[in-house]
């Protein structure tokens, strides 16, 4: 049972993620999580004003069910399958984070400095989280895919376009981690 509660190794997790993608292909669908953001926008009826969202969202109902499953999975994994010793990162990384005032993981998935409920009292943190979301939503729709659609599905289907997108993800990620985060924290 210990195996379940410990951090799952990369080769097990990577294999399962690949199988999830293949499963959806076998169901006649495709693996892409950011499409759901677009579907949620379409569901508001905004398609009457903006043609981009004028799609029949019911054709994406299956993908919303995947989201429902993912939410349940997150709940079960975090509440019943976790162990307080879990997230343990490189000590060098921890030292760097402490210098920026970001708390060490000590088993937690997310830092309190960004995701503790106290952030609701900080306009700066509220702004940062919304801004991060805007970049994710805008970027994934512009690039027509995120980690699941481009990095996993696209690369395994040998799409050069996906390779461009993934290189873009890394350029953006490196700029943020090395140059912008130290300015924000």
């Amino acid at each position: 049972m210990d195996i379940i509660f410990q951090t799952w190794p990369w080769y097990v997790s990577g294999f399962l993620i690949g199988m999830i993608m293949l499963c959806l292909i076998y169901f006649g669908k495709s693996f892409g999580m950011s499409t759901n953001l677009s579907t949620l926008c379409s569901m508001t009826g905004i398609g009457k004003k903006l043609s981009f969202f004028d799609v029949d969202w019911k054709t994406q109902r299956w993908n919303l069910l995947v989201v429902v499953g993912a939410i349940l999975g997150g709940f079960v994994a975090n509440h019943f399958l976790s162990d307080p010793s879990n997230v343990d990162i490189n000590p060098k990384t921890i030292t760097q984070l402490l210098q920026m005032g970001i708390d060490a993981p000590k088993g937690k998935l997310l830092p309190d400095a960004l995701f503790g409920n106290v952030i609701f009292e900080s306009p700066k943190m509220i702004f940062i989280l919304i801004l991060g979301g805007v970049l994710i939503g805008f970027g994934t729709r512009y690039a027509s895919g995120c980690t699941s659609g481009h990095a996993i599905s696209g690369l395994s289907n040998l799409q050069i376009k996906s390779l461009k997108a993934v290189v873009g993800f890394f350029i953006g990620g490196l700029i943020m981690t090395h140059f912008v985060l130290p300015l924000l924290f």
Partner: protein
Amino acid sequence: MNALKYIVVGFVFGIVLTKSEAVSWYRIYEMFQFQSFHMYGIIMVAVVTGLIGIQIIKRINVKDIKGLPIEILDKEPGSARFWIGGICFGLGWALVGACPGPIFILLGAGFLPMLLVLIGALLGTFFYGLLRNKLPH
């Protein structure tokens, strides 16, 4: 049954991403600092598994669950969109440590501030729909 199989796939996805800590802000930060192999290992094994699976599907013409031929569509044409959109997403990914899947998974795990990220992501998607005709693709 029809709906259940998608919920089950999503459920496994949520558990795998949480248990592998791919939903962790720390893991994303560590990845972009090149201080751990963990995330690179996950992405590489997922791609290799998918690559082998897709090659098998294509070579022996595997049919889908309804018995129809499996068609894996190419991505939309364009070039600038992948670079610029990709960089925007990368900035957001490293800032909040979550891509679209983990936003939902972490909400399920009970992290309320993720709601702000989700609101932002819906706004960002809306902005793209609004500006699409003015952007280079």
